[in-house]
């Protein structure tokens, strides 16, 4: 690794520095566009007491769900978590804390965190349990609550293609939370399907500029499908 070259050759190197009780911001929506290799590495490293910020928590045996197996997650910040039995079990036993956050607010918390904005007002959640205990304010006759942004110790991101400088493009709806998660890590790790040379991606097509990316690794992905729905051909 030298100059702007962000490429690392192993997941050990990609996740080096991860310790207990850290906060990790993760891209992905359901099982779509999740950083599979980083998640496996976190499991292998065995770090405990983690706070994970991600729209969902995977399923039993796949995605972020595997971090529940050895009780590595202390707190989950997510908008929807209903897909795994182990999650439910640990939540009910009190081993796992969950902070349910509206999906758009979660996205904006990452975006704002990455953009140096400590908090923002949103109408989402005003008058609901989400707004309880939060500062509120009226603008032009409408009520808003103050939501604080999020920056993780690590951000783990799944891209499609990147150049060695960490300029990333995403594929289809595997984009989801990934580009905003990429901005919201003190150390941002991006795993992609293909690494190309600088200049090979049209500069205007780059979705995550390399400035946000600290470590880049080429991975292999299972890409499991959660709800396979087809029509007759």
């Amino acid at each position, binding site marked *: 690794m030298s100059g702007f070259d962000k490429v690392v050759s192993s997941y050990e190197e990609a996740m080096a520095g991860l310790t207990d009780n850290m906060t990790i911001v993760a891209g992905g*929506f359901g099982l779509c566009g999740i950083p599979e290799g980083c998640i496996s590495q976190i499991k292998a490293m065995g770090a405990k007491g983690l706070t994970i910020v991600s729209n969902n928590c995977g399923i039993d045996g796949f995605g972020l769900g595997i971090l529940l197996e050895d009780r590595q997650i202390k707190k989950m910040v997510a908008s929807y978590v209903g897909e795994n039995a182990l999650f439910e079990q640990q939540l009910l036993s009190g081993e796992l804390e969950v902070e349910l956050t509206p999906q*758009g607010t979660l996205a904006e918390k990452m975006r704002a965190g990455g953009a140096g904005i400590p908090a923002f007002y949103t109408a989402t*959640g005003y008058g*609901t349990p989400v707004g309880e205990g939060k500062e509120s304010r009226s603008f032009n006759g409408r009520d808003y609550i103050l939501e604080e942004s999020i920056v993780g110790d690590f951000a783990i991101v799944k891209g499609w293609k990147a150049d060695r400088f960490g300029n990333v493009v995403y594929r289809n709806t595997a984009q*989801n939370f990934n580009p905003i998660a990429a901005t919201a890590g003190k150390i941002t790790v991006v795993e992609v399907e293909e690494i190309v040379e600088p200049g090979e991606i049209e500069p205007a097509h780059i979705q995550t500029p390399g400035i946000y990316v600290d470590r880049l690794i080429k991975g292999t992905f299972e890409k499991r499908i959660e709800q396979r729905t087809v029509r007759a051909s």
Partner: protein
Amino acid sequence: MALTREQMAQRVACELKDGYYVNLGIGIPTLVANYIPDGMSIMFQSENGLLGMGQFPTEDEVDADMINAGKQTVTAIPGASIFSSAESFGMIRGGHVDLTVLGAFEIDVSGNIASWMIPGKLIKGMGGAMDLVAGADNIIVVMTHASKHGESKLLTECTLPLTGAGCIKKVLTDLAYLEIKDQKFWLKERAPGVSVEEIAEKTAGALVIPDHVPEMKFSV
């Protein structure tokens, strides 16, 4: 007769206008896509970051990187665009989506909606529902008028934790189409064969009944 799920979707589809960007929730709202009036162009927004959602893929077209907000595999229509979750909720919160259709457990005369949490039952989360109801101006709630035990879901005040406060103005149930204004439900249409008396009996919140309540039509 109470409306079927398909009839409810058909009635909601009458509210579509050519060139509308529409977000459909999970369940009956999803069926609205099957009843787009002939000659009308509609783009469906899926809040995971897709504007211009198409039909389900054929077996050959299945792509793990192309899903909707229900995590189902989908396709994109020509002219679709794909973007981040922040952008997606920017367009929702910013009021750029023309029509949002979603389900609910309860609504009340103040336009409050409860749709995500039943205390004592496992809470899975609100997903994007709170952002959708807070951001959209034109929302249609689609729900059954009463529970299986006959208890009204159109209340003076919601009993369940809210998804949004004061944001609902239109409701389609299996019995009627109603609007919410001035702390009252206003009965606008009744399902074919359903009496005004039955609707009144199953509406717990204040209800305004005009002299003539037309029967619902399913095409424009």
